[in-house]
């Protein structure tokens, strides 16, 4: 049985990189074409979906593959957003540099915090990152160059003229967000399939055994935290671009929303992150439609989405703890195995 599995995986590794690249390019091309065919509202929502998907991807990378749960992705997003905004305000470099700054600075903070976090596990890490998510944005009020509650504007300007006059603000947001997200997801996907990714997985499911075979679980955990923070930082910069770089952009609710999206998408499947982003945008839409039937009460509009997503969260973790996608996958694998066993 073991032998067969190895055979299969070696066959799979037959140039997986190029195939993934092709897939992401096709997906990107399709999405951008689509941007021309739908209303401005959908384009705007598309940008939000891309941003959430990226943030969820950063959490999946951390939790699904290295077993650490961070409730503080919002804090790393904030760091990335402030880094991007400050870089732009003080240096005015090309746009791409501001996004790189977001990734690098957030990753740096991730490395520092990850250094401490690697020693913590389960609820301790969750509680600490929760305190980070709640505490870090308030720093903006301490230093005037961070703009206080009013925040900073991370202004990516309008689309270059060669894109034409029809190219709206939202389409510009969507292009930037979708491209950044696709490139980043592609990058994460490749890490996860690399030996690092496999080492993380090993460290997650059995730290003691991984240690025995010479994998440095601690160091790899820090690395996972660093990369995750960097990815979250980029998502934060993108959110800052669409919204505002302010403490109230990066609230605890945002961190919770990202966890919700990640759990619903399946904490162990990166590809589910796009689905997770979609869920976060679609559920409020549905809730609004439903609340319309209740006479558009403010209390219903404000709370109904939270009720639905939280209920889904509980049900998911109670009955399919590894996410619906993984469960389905698991189910399929089992079936395959059974078929194989029968054949032998």
């Amino acid at each position, binding site marked *: 049985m073991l032998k067969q599995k190895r055979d299969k995986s070696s066959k799979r590794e037959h140039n997986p990189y190029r195939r993934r690249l092709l897939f992401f390019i096709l997906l990107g091309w399709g999405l951008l074409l689509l941007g021309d065919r739908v209303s401005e509202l959908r384009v*705007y929502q598309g940008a939000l979906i891309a941003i959430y998907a990226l943030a969820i991807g950063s959490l999946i990378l951390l939790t699904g593959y290295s077993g650490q749960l961070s409730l503080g992705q919002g804090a790393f997003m904030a760091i990335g957003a402030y880094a991007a905004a400050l870089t732009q305000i003080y240096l005015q470099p090309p746009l791409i540099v501001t996004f790189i700054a977001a990734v690098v600075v957030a990753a740096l903070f991730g490395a520092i915090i990850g250094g401490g976090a690697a020693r913590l596990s389960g609820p301790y890490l969750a509680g600490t990152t929760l305190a980070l998510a709640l505490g870090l944005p308030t720093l903006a009020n301490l230093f005037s160059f961070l703009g206080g509650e009013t*925040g900073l504007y991370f*202004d990516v300007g309008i689309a270059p003229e060669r894109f034409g006059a029809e190219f709206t603000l939202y389409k510009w947001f969507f292009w930037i967000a979708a491209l950044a997200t696709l490139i980043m997801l592609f990058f994460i996907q490749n890490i996860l399939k690399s030996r690092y990714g496999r080492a993380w997985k090993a460290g997650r499911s059995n730290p003691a055994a991984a240690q025995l075979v010479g994998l440095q679980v601690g160091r790899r955990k820090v690395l996972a935290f660093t990369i995750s923070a960097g990815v979250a930082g980029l998502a934060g910069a993108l959110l800052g671009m669409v919204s505002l770089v302010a403490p109230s952009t990066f609230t605890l609710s945002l961190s919770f929303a990202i966890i919700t999206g990640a759990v619903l998408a399946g904490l162990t499947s990166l590809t589910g992150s796009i*689905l997770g982003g979609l869920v976060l945008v679609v559920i409020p839409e549905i809730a609004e439609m439903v609340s319309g039937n209740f006479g558009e009460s403010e209390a219903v509009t404000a709370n109904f989405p939270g009720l639905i997503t939280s209920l889904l969260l509980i049900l998911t973790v109670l009955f399919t703890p590894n996410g619906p996608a993984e469960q389905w996958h698991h189910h399929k694998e089992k079936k395959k195995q059974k078929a194989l066993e029968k054949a032998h």
Partner: protein
Amino acid sequence: MIGSFRKKGLVAASAIVAIAGLALAAVPAQAREVGVTATSIKIGTTVPLTGIAGPGYAKVAPAMKAYFDYVNANGGINGRKIEFIIKDDRYLPPVSVEKTNELILKDKVFAIVGALGTANNLAVNSRVRLGSRGVPSLFVNTGFSGFADKKKFPTLFPLFSSYRMEAKIMGQYIKENFAGKKIGLIYQNDDFGADALKGFESAGVKFDVSLPYVSGTQGAATATTWIQKMAAAKVEVVYIFGVTTATAAAVGVAAAAGYKPQWIFGSVGADATTIVGQTTVPVALLNGALSMSFMPDAADTTDEYVKFFREVNTTYNNNATFDNNIMAGMNGAMMVAQALKAAGANPTRKSLIAAIESKGSTWASAGYPPIGFSSTSRVGYTGFWIGKYNLTGSLIPVEAKGTIFTTDSGNGPVVKTTSKRPALPAKGLPN
């Protein structure tokens, strides 16, 4: 190869779902201006209904809606009913940006009216680019002087007398009446507060104790530190230049601590019913506190505008407790109705802005000071009257009624004059 494609099934599935989600709606063709149909005209606003600044300010938008409902019941604007959408932004600038995006993209409003908050409006104008997209934002509920900059905010019209004007006028009053006393200031540490600081500077007022606070922290805990510091420094006059919840927190804690300074409340943080509703202090405790306003006091039932707004409030606003927030809401709504009417039988966003520029300064409103709109000026009201609270929480003018102080948001002088406010039009409807 085939196997790998199957493995990618999930990826493809999620991508397809994402694309399908995006493709739900197509763009409808538009003949008329956005938000305008043969029978209706759609406008929207962002205000705090909940959250830290909610108490008091939550009454502004429903009051606007009440006046619009009254207009609709009397035939609407040029035969069109006003459809008014209220979004709660909890006074958080990023939420204002999000909700404004929704108003423009999802609800497709003709214009934004009465959006509340300095930081909120600044954020919206920068991030949603109302100006370059030509979306009008009428009569914002903030007195930030910077909004009068037509170049920066080509589609935005402020209405309130600016915070700078306020600080200059009250600054002069402080110099004349409280010379030699210890004076303290509590202000919101953002553009709202900074605007006032500039005004105090031009008035030449110095504060012995100056305490900035971060929007969102103005609870009892923070107010305790204000009062302890003010009391420790033996400050005799305390000027609170913040939102109403900040005033309420300070007054409540001071009452409990037995600290009794001469209070001065900033015009947007001075509503007596809200302050009393948010604390356990009896209304009589406000007696003698100074404040200023550009509208008549909500309790002044001899004023024709107050009387009219109270009638609308009874019928169309569930008879909510009438206060300055409701006054501000209805007064803004009255200006909006006149602007929509003046924009013509086939209103466009451009004709709306042109109408305000050409006729806005002549429209009827409850405000005492003259309005400064013209093709070159975006300044709304240009002054205040100063009053003192009595035992029942009404603001009583310190000068003769109708006496106002006018000035500008620069270094111009403060001028004492008499109001020449237009009379209430028939039935309170736009002419």
